[in-house]
């Protein structure tokens, strides 16, 4: 055995490398890969079309907003990725799309904001440490969303375990409508308001200013954007450890690979499926609270589009594949952000931000034509 190989082996078996450095490196690689590809593409386009625009410098305008576009895309990409993990984990163990996951996400956000509003009416919101407050809101969102996801599985999916595959899918769509209107009803009966508005607190709306050499203007990033990215990265790393480094994770992977055999090996399949829903639901709930912090307003139907996009991200990355969901989320977020910001500039307003979804979905279709199992999906083909 040569020396280099053993060093590599030592490194890869080191838990810090395996469970912290490697996943973070992976996330960074995805961001850099997708971000640089898209940036190079728009800059090239800007140079090509430079002559066709008379009254402004296209390259200058493209470069001026590029950092902000990247940040927007990465931010929403992490939200998509966090929700997509819920879809993909459930698909991994049960092989069906849990369409009510977008409502689990919405419930998490609504619960988090309602906690903040409750603290505000009690008058204690302003006096508390803002990080403690947001941590409480995220935790509560995770607990409620996680337990709701487990309940939904128990009530709406488990009785249909042996049924044809379309049946739980329809049950999931029904559950989605039910949850939307249940939240609408509860909000109507309690606060009487349709819009759930985040109270203003702390310094999350303020900016951090970053000066990068070579950039004309400094880059401004809102605190809440940094918080969102930081918290989701921590959750993603935590999830990676849970799935790849613990006994429970091993059991989840075993159930995903072969449910009957896993059960023969003494794994409690029902418990593992519940745990999967708990994990996916809590991630969705946390994403909901962070999303609420970012957009400042929720309503009972706000989960639909992020949910749809996250589902798309999961398919894009290869459904059933955790790393794929992460990659898919980041790629879709960046695609959307680039499409929305640059379509209008490049087409002189003929196609505006409203076409961002068409662009993103056209690329999705193109990818699925050439790689039907998604960017990172290999094992799925034989399973489905």
């Amino acid at each position, binding site marked *: 055995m040569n020396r280099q190989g053993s060093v590599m082996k030592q490194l890869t078996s080191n838990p810090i490398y395996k469970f912290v450095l490697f996943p973070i490196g992976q996330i960074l690689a995805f961001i850099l890969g997708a971000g640089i590809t898209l940036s190079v593409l728009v800059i090239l386009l800007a140079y090509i079309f430079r002559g066709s625009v008379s009254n402004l410098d296209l390259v200058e305008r493209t470069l001026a907003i590029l950092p902000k576009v990247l940040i927007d895309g990465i931010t929403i990409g992490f939200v998509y990725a966090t929700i997509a993990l819920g879809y993909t984990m459930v698909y991994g163990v049960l092989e069906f799309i849990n369409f009510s996951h977008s409502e689990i996400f919405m419930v998490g956000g609504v619960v988090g904001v309602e906690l903040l509003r409750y603290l505000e009416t009690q008058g204690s919101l302003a006096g508390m440490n803002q990080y403690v407050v947001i941590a409480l809101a995220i935790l509560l969102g995770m607990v409620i969303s996680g337990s709701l996801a487990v309940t939904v599985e128990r009530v709406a999916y488990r009785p249909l375990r042996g049924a044809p595959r379309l049946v739980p899918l329809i049950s999931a769509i029904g559950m989605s409508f039910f949850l939307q209107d249940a939240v609408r009803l509860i909000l109507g009966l309690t606060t009487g308001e*349709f*819009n759930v508005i985040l109270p203003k607190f702390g310094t999350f709306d303020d900016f951090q200013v970053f000066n990068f050499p070579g950039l004309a203007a400094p880059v401004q990033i809102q605190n809440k954007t940094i918080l969102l990215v930081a918290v989701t990265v921590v959750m993603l790393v935590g999830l990676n450890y849970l799935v790849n480094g613990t006994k429970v994770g091993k059991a989840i992977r075993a159930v995903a690979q072969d449910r009957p055999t896993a059960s023969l090996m003494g794994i409690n399949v029902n418990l593992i499926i519940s745990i999967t829903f708990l994990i996916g639901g809590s991630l969705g709930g946390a994403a909901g609270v962070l999303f609420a912090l970012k957009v400042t307003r929720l309503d009972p139907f706000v989960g639909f589009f992020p949910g749809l996009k996250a589902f798309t991200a999961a398919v894009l990355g290869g459904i059933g594949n955790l790393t794929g969901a992460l990659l898919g989320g980041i790629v879709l977020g960046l695609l959307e952000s680039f499409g929305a910001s640059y379509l209008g500039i490049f087409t002189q307003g003929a196609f505006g*931000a409203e076409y961002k979804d068409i662009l993103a979905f056209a690329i999705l279709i193109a990818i699925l034509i050439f790689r039907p199992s998604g960017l990172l999906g290999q094992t799925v083909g034989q399973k489905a």
Partner: protein
Amino acid sequence: MSKRLNLVIALTIAVSLVLAACSSSGGGEAKLIKIATQSPLSGGQSLLGVDIKNGAQLALEQLSGPLTEMGFTVKLEPYDDQATPDVGVANAKAIVADPAILCGVGHLNSGVMIPSSEEYHVAGLAFVSPANTNPVVTTRGYAEVNRIVGRDDVQAPVAEAYAFNELGARSVYIIHDKTAYGQGVAEFFRGAAEKDGMNVMGFEGTEETANFDAIITPMLAANPDVVFFSGIYNQAGVFFKQARDAGYEGTFMGTDGMDASGLADLAGDALVKGGGMVYTSVAGPASAYPKAAKFAEDFKAKFGADPQPFAAQGYDAAAVCLKAIENAAKAAGNQVPTREAVRDAIRALTLEGITGTISFDSIGDLPKAKYFIIKVNATSGAEWGKNEIVAELEFASPGMGE
């Protein structure tokens, strides 16, 4: 024997049921007159929609006296169009199928009114709109469709003139909500801005209601003097807040869809920071109408809250319906009038409403409508009354053309 007895009992019951049914339909319903309302009673725009219905209900209670004396029972039949075209059309089918409904008040959204009014037109059922401003609502020339507010093809140039002359704006970024109403106003605004030589830096439509990053980033880079948002408050409020948080310092402008206290709840101090926010409206606050003071009082006493914009228009629209039905009933010799007679009576009417004198031209528009420009001074919904009217203008309806 028992078989025959059963038969006799069954026949008796059947006959008595038929008789009972006949007597109830022959006696009570002959004199029943219903007025329908269609507005969003649930969802994000319900704040405005519910108050249109409440305004109409108040009118019915206060003004149905003459009809009651003539022996009619007048009832309000509220429908929830959910601000959605297909729900509005489905309701419209139910409304025209109910022969007791002789007149209607609605809708809030032009995008819902236009397809729904095709049903009213076929059935000859008159509707009076308290809020629809898209020109197409009346320019189809339907005898059934009337409105008691101004039009977008006047409202948008009024807003543009204010931005150009009073605010001194030379560049504008236009955003609309892709509805018949929002896009319509936005296009009229763009036309007027280009005529004045204003730099239109962007023209975007979006259905997004949560995350506006993708629109705000290029907008901030362009840094226009004015951002004109043509849409409804529930979407605009979130956009204004996010744009202000992201560092936009100019003036926000909006249309009458912004005229709801919910806007300030959503946007908070984003509306008064920087260049502030102004909106045009075809319906001023109740205080803008000298005759509406009593209405505002009665409304608050009955429903426990100040009337939202368009509530007074809801009241007047219902008043038009009641008066027209009364006139038509008198002409028919105190019988229930036909829908056609009510429809024609509306066009012949001149009524002193609480929002001004109401009469209709040949396509159902007010000959002269009022337009307001209102500056927001509120940072929360409770302060919405602090907004001030900075300009009040009266313009003639452009009629069928443009």
